[in-house]
């Protein structure tokens, strides 16, 4: 998306094209890696990062804070790490909720 932004086209066009390109690449990666990961669902978190980070970069550039390729990559890496932390927290919360809703028992 950063590369597309450097074309200096209309902001909305760049946003839509950039998002589509980022998601397309993510989807290809998901299908490519799915035999290793076991499923493409495990790519959903990186899809989130692929959607949000390009928008952050675009909005920042719209407000006058210009990003270079290295800056954009840094923001992407930081966002990925933060989302990784969020997933750990969310997963723990969800498992706790499950344990409360369906306490372990076996049907005879």
């Amino acid at each position, binding site marked *: 998306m950063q590369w597309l932004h450097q074309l200096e086209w209309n902001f909305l066009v760049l946003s839509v094209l950039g998002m589509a390109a980022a998601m397309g690449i993510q989807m290809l990666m998901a299908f490519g890696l799915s035999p290793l990961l076991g499923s*493409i669902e495990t790519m959903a*978190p990186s899809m989130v990062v692929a959607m949000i980070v390009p928008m952050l970069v675009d909005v920042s550039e719209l407000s006058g804070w210009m990003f270079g390729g290295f800056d954009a990559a840094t923001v992407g890496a930081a966002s990925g790490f933060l989302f990784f932390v969020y997933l750990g927290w*969310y*997963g723990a919360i969800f*498992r706790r909720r499950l344990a409360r809703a369906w306490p372990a*028992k076996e049907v005879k």
Partner: protein
Amino acid sequence: MHGQVLFLAVGTGVDITRFPAGQTIIGIDISVEMLRRAEARRRAYRGQIAFVLGDAERLAFGDGSFDTVVSSCTMCSVPHPVVALKQLYRVLRPGGRLLMFEHVRSGSWPLGLALDVMTLWTRLLGTEMNRDTVANVLTAGFQIVRIESVYLDIILSIHAVKPINREV
């Protein structure tokens, strides 16, 4: 898994390698090609498996024919999941078990949104990644016994039963 088992949507049969030995299973799939691909795994299974060409939404089995129904990543691809689940309910005997391994929409808004967006693409390949399968299981009349998280709240192992004293 016990008694007469219905295995819904055989696919390539990769799940068969994980089934406990010695079961009596009927596996169905809507695709002849998939059943053909699964044939080697069927032969390798140490138990009895028969394959039947069939549609999950129109099961050609009598009411209460099975003790256990097993599905793996199926409800994302069935056009009308509640219709299929009601068919599973019908062919299970009262007290019979429904064992599912399914991926569903996440309750987390960023993850749910990502799955909604991914579905725009994956739908073209025949799979929906944002279904509320737990709600669909309940709608079909099952009682949920246990849900286990395999991956966050996206990939779930769902264990449900057909109530003994209730019909939909």
